[in-house]
């Protein structure tokens, strides 16, 4: 609450100051997130992270002497709502669109921004993707004005496999179970592709509907039957929780390698069921403890909670954007998106995890990853339980990087 009124205060201040100077318009950022409905929990985390990140930039002087304004739009969780809200944001003068949750929504927004920029050459809009991890966004759908600040499916899968291998937790028989849409299919494909290099066999692959299944017992019976000792899954939210609980109930003796085990509530709900499972994320507070805990505490003092799940990477992404903004001059109506995009390609930011930068070839962020295991020894406990995430391997940005996709044909300006 305190943070919200604080953010509002800054926005109000921004208006007053903009009116005072009255020469250049303040830079406007349109946050098009899922702020209501069943999937709002993640969207609201992105919102906290963006407001925190922008408030830091504003504290340091904002952009062109004026604080940056964040306009919020509710995409209601679907591509249709998002398309509509992106239009509204652009009409309201937003120069940058920010979104994170859902690859389905991101697929819509990135296309809308691309088409808008084709029609309005010279008045382009930038799309900062904070967390949609489907490969196509930096593959067949890549374009010059899209930037992904989070890892993608290839990075998630390869780093978690790598970390599990090193921890001796990666078996020889791997079962890939995923949600049947772009992200889940990407996770499955990358798991299969990594098999020979890491010396395991993918015994079976399963795709299932997204967040519709209550009872995972039949799926677990299938996993059991396949003889798998490791399960790799990109499942998130209820699909991950129910899968793990069903596996534990059936006494399935398999380790889970996941991408989103750290979503708030998961550890609290699963309890001991999650112990010994793995996740690969861009942040863990135990790595580089001094700098990390300073970040943790500062974030908590502003938002009321420790950063978790998608929040750290989103904050790093906004910091990277801030670095790029510092390199460009403000224009009459905000910022020149092309100049900003070129600056973003060169930007680097020092985070507690290491250096985060942007790859010019496909606009995929290059960022360090931390493979973590759920243990009782973790310093920061999750959801008030005795469990937390202990780092098992820190993978540098260079090592985490995955090859450019051939499908990305980026048309550069000029």
């Amino acid at each position, binding site marked *: 609450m305190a943070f919200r009124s604080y953010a509002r205060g800054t926005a109000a201040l921004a208006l007053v100051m903009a009116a005072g100077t009255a020469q250049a318009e303040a830079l406007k950022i349109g946050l098009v997130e899922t702020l209501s409905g069943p999937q709002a929990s993640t969207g609201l985390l992105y919102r906290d992270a963006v407001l925190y990140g922008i408030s830091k930039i504003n504290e340091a002087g904002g952009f062109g002497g004026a604080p940056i304004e964040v306009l919020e739009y509710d995409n209601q969780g679907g591509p249709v709502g998002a398309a509509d809200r992106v239009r509204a944001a652009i009409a309201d003068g937003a120069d940058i669109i920010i979104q994170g949750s859902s690859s389905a929504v991101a697929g819509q927004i990135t296309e809308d921004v691309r088409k808008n920029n084709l029609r309005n050459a010279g008045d382009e809009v930038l799309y900062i993707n904070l967390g949609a991890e489907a490969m196509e966004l930096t593959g067949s759908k890549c374009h010059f004005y899209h930037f992904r600040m989070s890892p993608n499916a290839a990075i998630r899968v390869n780093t978690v496999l790598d970390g599990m291998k090193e921890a001796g937790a990666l078996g020889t028989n791997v079962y890939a179970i995923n949600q049947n849409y772009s992200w889940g299919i990407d996770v499955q494909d990358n798991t299969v592709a990594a098999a020979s290099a890491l010396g395991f066999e993918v015994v079976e692959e399963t795709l299932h509907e997204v967040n519709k299944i*209550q*009872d995972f017992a039949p799926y677990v019976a299938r996993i059991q039957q396949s003889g798998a000792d490791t399960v790799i899954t990109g499942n998130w939210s209820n699909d991950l929780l129910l899968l793990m609980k069903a596996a534990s109930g059936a006494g399935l003796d398999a380790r889970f390698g996941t991408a989103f085990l750290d979503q708030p509530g998961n550890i609290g709900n699963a309890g001991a069921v999650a112990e010994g499972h793995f996740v690969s994320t861009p942040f863990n507070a135990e790595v580089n403890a001094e700098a990390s805990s300073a970040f943790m505490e500062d974030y908590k003092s502003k938002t009321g909670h420790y950063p978790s799940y998608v929040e750290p990477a989103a904050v790093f992404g906004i910091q990277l954007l801030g670095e790029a903004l510092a390199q460009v001059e403000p224009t009459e109506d905000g910022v020149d998106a092309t100049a900003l995009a070129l600056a973003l390609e060169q930007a680097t930011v020092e985070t507690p995890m290491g250096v985060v930068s942007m790859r010019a070839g496909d606009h995929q962020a290059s960022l360090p990853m931390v493979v973590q295991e759920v243990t009782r020894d973790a310093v920061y406990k999750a959801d008030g339980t005795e469990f937390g995430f202990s780092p098992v391997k820190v993978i540098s940005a260079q090592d985490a990087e995955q090859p450019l996709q051939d499908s990305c044909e980026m048309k550069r300006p000029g």
Partner: protein
Amino acid sequence: MGGAQAPAMSPPAIKKGMGLVLDQIIFALLNGTIYGLLLFMVSAGLTLIFGMMGVLNFAHASFYMLGAYFAYTLEPLTGFWIAIILSPLLVAGIGILVERYILRHVHAHGHAHELLVTFGLSVVIAEIIKMAYGKFAIDYRVPVELNFAAFSLSGIDYPFYRLFMGGIALAMFIAIYLLLTRTRVGIVVRSAIYRPQMVEALGHNVPLVFMGVFGFGAALAGLAGAVAGAFYTTNPNMALELGVMVFVVVVVGGLGSMGGAMAASLLIGITNSLAVGSNFMLADALALVGLGAWAQDIGGLLTTRLSSLAATIPFFIMLLVLVVRPSGLMGEKE
């Protein structure tokens, strides 16, 4: 099943394989039955309320969610057993208030208004839950003393709690059946459906009967929530997740039919469970008539495995039932 090691098996291995397959089928049937019984627990109240009052209650799955959250809140104070008894009673209280102070006023305006009111109510309940308990899943879990394997078949444990849920659902079915067919209350309730004026003329308080039925139906959903919330997850979306499936069950079974709800629940639970375990694709069926290679070439839907379509099967069943028998498997009302 186990396609990779199928060729070149020695006779004992084949025998072992057969045993495995048999175990798999037993598990699939058991899993399906228990899931079906859970669906029944929630849909029983919905179909009961519709049968008695003609109200299609959109907020019904919200009562399921309330049951889980109440039990979670009460558990630390009273222990698990008292919590799963008290929680349905609280939900019944809320159901009674809803009927008395909201639905009764809207009833005169017809079904569309009732639908809208209950739909709005479901949204309000979900938002209140989010405000009170947060947006994420809460740590409502199966108590330790019930968290053990009932038995084990070819290496897979079967959780006792699943059997426990199934047992409660069966007890519930029998109790409702006896209540409606063998008691005076049941006679009054059943007659109030068909001839409300006559029952009123005989000196029975029909609005009170309706209020009671609504409260009872809500309590059934609350009990289901209190029991199943611990096994699955208790989160602000649980009403939404189960709500759709419950409506499918009630439509397939026939609106207002208790037996139909039971049959439809089991049908959906078991087909779903068997479908997940199967590698069947349409191309296999076409291969029988020599079109296998052609189907493989076409790909798409023809080579999609049944297992990845499992969650759509209930809707397919609903479609089929609506086309062939619009009143549902055992429904009387058209």
